[in-house]
C-alpha cells in the first residue's frame, strides 16, 4: 500500500500544531528556549562586528555580505528546530524501543518522529537571523528584484538542512547509543566552518563542503548568488542538491528502519 500524501501531511501538521498550542499553555519553557536562541544570534552579530573592526574583508567579503551570510545560515540551520526537531530523537527511540509504536501506526514513521517535539530556540534564532540577513542585504545594496530568488534559496536551504539532520541522525539506527554523535558533529562543523566565506579555506576543504558534505548550498552559495558573486549557473545547485539529499535522506532512514530490531525489553 502506497503512502497517502494528504494523510501524511495531516499527521505531520497536527502533531506540530499540537506542540505549538501546548507552548501557549506552558509558557515557561518557551521563554527560556527563545532567549537562548536570541542570545546565540546576538553573539553571532557581535562576532562579525568585532571582526570587522580589525579587518576590512574576510575572504574578499565585506561586513554587510558577512552579515547576510551569518543571517542566512542562522535561518537555514536554525529553522528546522521549529518543524523537524523530533528527528534528533532517533537515537533515543532506537535505544529504548520507542520506535515500536510508530511502526504499528498507519502513517509513515519519519514524519511521526520528526514532530515528536519542537526546539523553541528556533523562535529566537530565526527572526534574529532574518533581521541580520535583511540588514546585511540593505547594507550590501542588493536589489529588491532578488527577493523571489532569495525565497527559493531559503526553501532549498531548509530542505538541505532537514535532509542533512535526518541523514546524520539516522546513523543512530546502526550506531547504538543515546547520543546523536553524527548529528552533533554536523552542527558543530557547520557552526564553525560555514560562518566564513569558503574562499578563506584551502581548495580541498572548499570542494569537500560543496560536493561531499554539501553544506555550502545551504548558506554560502545562496548568498554568493544573491550578491552577484556567482554566475547564474550556480542557481541550479541548491534545488538539485536539495532534491538529491532529500531522496538520500528518505532512502537512508528507510534502510535504518529495516535494520531496526527493537530493544530487548
Amino acid at each position, binding site marked *: 500500500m502506497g503512502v497517502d500524501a494528504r494523510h501524511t501531511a*495531516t499527521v505531520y501538521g497536527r502533531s506540530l500544531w499540537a506542540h505549538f498550542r*501546548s507552548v501557549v499553555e506552558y509558557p515557561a519553557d518557551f521563554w527560556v528556549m527563545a532567549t537562548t536562541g536570541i542570545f546565540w544570534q546576538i553573539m553571532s552579530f557581535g562576532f562579525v562586528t568585532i571582526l570587522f573592526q580589525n579587518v576590512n574583508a574576510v575572504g574578499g567579503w565585506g561586513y554587510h555580505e558577512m552579515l547576510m551570510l551569518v543571517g542566512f545560515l542562522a535561518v537555514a540551520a536554525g529553522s528546522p528546530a521549529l518543524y523537524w526537531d523530533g528527528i534528533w530523537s532517533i537515537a533515543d527511540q532506537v535505544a529504548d*524501543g*520507542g520506535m515500536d*509504536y510508530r511502526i504499528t501506526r*498507519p502513517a509513515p514513521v519519519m514524519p511521526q518522529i520528526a514532530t515528536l517535539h519542537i526546539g523553541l530556540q528556533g523562535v529566537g534564532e530565526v527572526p534574529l537571523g532574518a533581521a541580520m540577513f535583511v540588514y546585511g542585504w540593505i547594507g550590501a545594496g542588493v536589489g529588491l528584484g532578488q527577493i523571489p530568488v532569495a525565497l527559493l534559496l531559503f526553501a532549498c536551504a531548509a530542505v538541505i538542512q532537514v535532509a542533512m539532520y535526518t541523514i546524520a541522525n539516522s546513523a543512530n539506527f546502526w550506531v547504538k547509543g543515546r547520543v546523536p554523535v553524527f548529528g552533533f558533529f554536523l552542527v558543530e562543523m557547520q557552526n564553525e566552518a560555514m560562518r566564513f566565506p569558503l574562499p578563506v579555506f584551502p581548495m580541498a576543504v572548499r570542494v569537500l563542503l560543496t560536493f561531499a558534505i554539501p553544506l555550502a548550498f545551504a548558506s554560502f552559495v545562496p548568498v554568493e548568488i544573491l550578491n552577484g558573486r556567482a554566475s547564474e549557473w550556480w542557481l541550479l545547485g541548491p534545488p538539485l542538491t536539495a532534491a538529491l539529499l532529500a531522496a538520500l535522506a528518505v532512502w537512508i532512514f528507510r534502510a535504518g528502519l529495516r535494520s531496526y530490531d527493537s530493544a530487548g*525489553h
Partner: protein
Amino acid sequence: MPILEARSLSKRFRRPDKKSGFNGALKHLVQRKYKNFTAVDSIDLEIDAGESVAYVGPNGAGKSTTVKLLTGILKPSEGTVRVMGRDPHTERIANAHDIGVLFGQRTQLWWDLPVEESLKLLKHMYRVPEAEYRLRIERFDELLGLGEFMPALARTLSLGQRMRADLACALIHAPKMVYLDEPTIGLDISVKDRLRAFLRQLVDDGTTLLLTSHDLADIEEVCDRIVILDEGSIAYDGPISELKARYITTKAVHLILDGPADLDALREKFPEYEWAAGQAASEAVATYETVRSTTAEVLGHLTARLAPRDLSLSEPDIEDVIRRLYAGELAK
C-alpha cells in the same frame, strides 16, 4: 479462517561474541565476531476471531519478541505471519488499522502533550470519525476513569494513569486484534481489577486478544486459552480449563488437630497420603491424588480416625502448575 496465523516463526538476534572485560571489548572491536541467538524458535500459532489468549513464560522466554513479530515491528528470521490475511511487516500500514498494541514498559503518549492531545492525534492518524471518537472516549472514561487526567501532560502521569491512557490509545480505533504486553505491570490491586474487568468486557464484545503477563490472576480472569512459551518454543497450548484438568491432579485436606501435628506418626499411619506441615503447629496437610481416591473417601477416612477440630480443602492453582512447568517438573 483464523484471524492470526503464524507458521514456523523464528527470530534470531545477532549478539556480539566477546569475552567480558576490557580485553574482550578490545578484541571484539578488531574481530567483530557475532553469535546468533534464537529468541523465538519455530513456533506455530493460530488464533481465531474472538479468542482471548494468554501468552506466558519465564523472563526472556521470547514473549515480547513474538508480539513484535506478530505486530510487524520485527521481520521474522524464518516463517510467516498473517493477520487477517496480511503480512504485518510488509503491509504494515494496512495492517495497522486492524491491530492495537500496548507495551506496558513504555508509553506511546506524546511526552510533552496533554493526554487528550495524544488521543486526538491518534484519532486523526487512524481516521476515526468524530462521533465514534467521542463515544469511545466516553466509554473509556466510564470504565477506566480517563477524565481526571485528560488535561495532564503525559510526563506528569503516575504509572497507573499512564497505563490507562495507553490502553485508550491502543484501542481508540477499535482494532479487531489487540496485543497487550504486560498491561498490568507495576499497577496496584484496585487499578489491576479495573483493568481486568475492562479487558474481559473487551473480549466479551468480540475483540480478539493476546495478553502477556506475569500475573496469573490477569490470565485467569481475562483469558480462555493459554500458550506457554519456554526458551522460544511453545510448551503448552490449550484451554486454561484443560491445563488445570491435566496438571491439577491432586487435592489437599487441611486438618486442624487437637495437639501439635506429629507428621512422622501421621505418615506411618496413613502412608497413602503425602503429609506436610500447615501454617499453624496443629495443622497437617494431606495431599492425595484425585484419580486414586475421591474427596468423600478421603474425608470419611481421615475424620473417622483423627477426629480433627476443623478441616478445609484446597487444590493447587494455576500458578503452581505454571511454576512447575517452568521448572521442568511436568512432562510437556
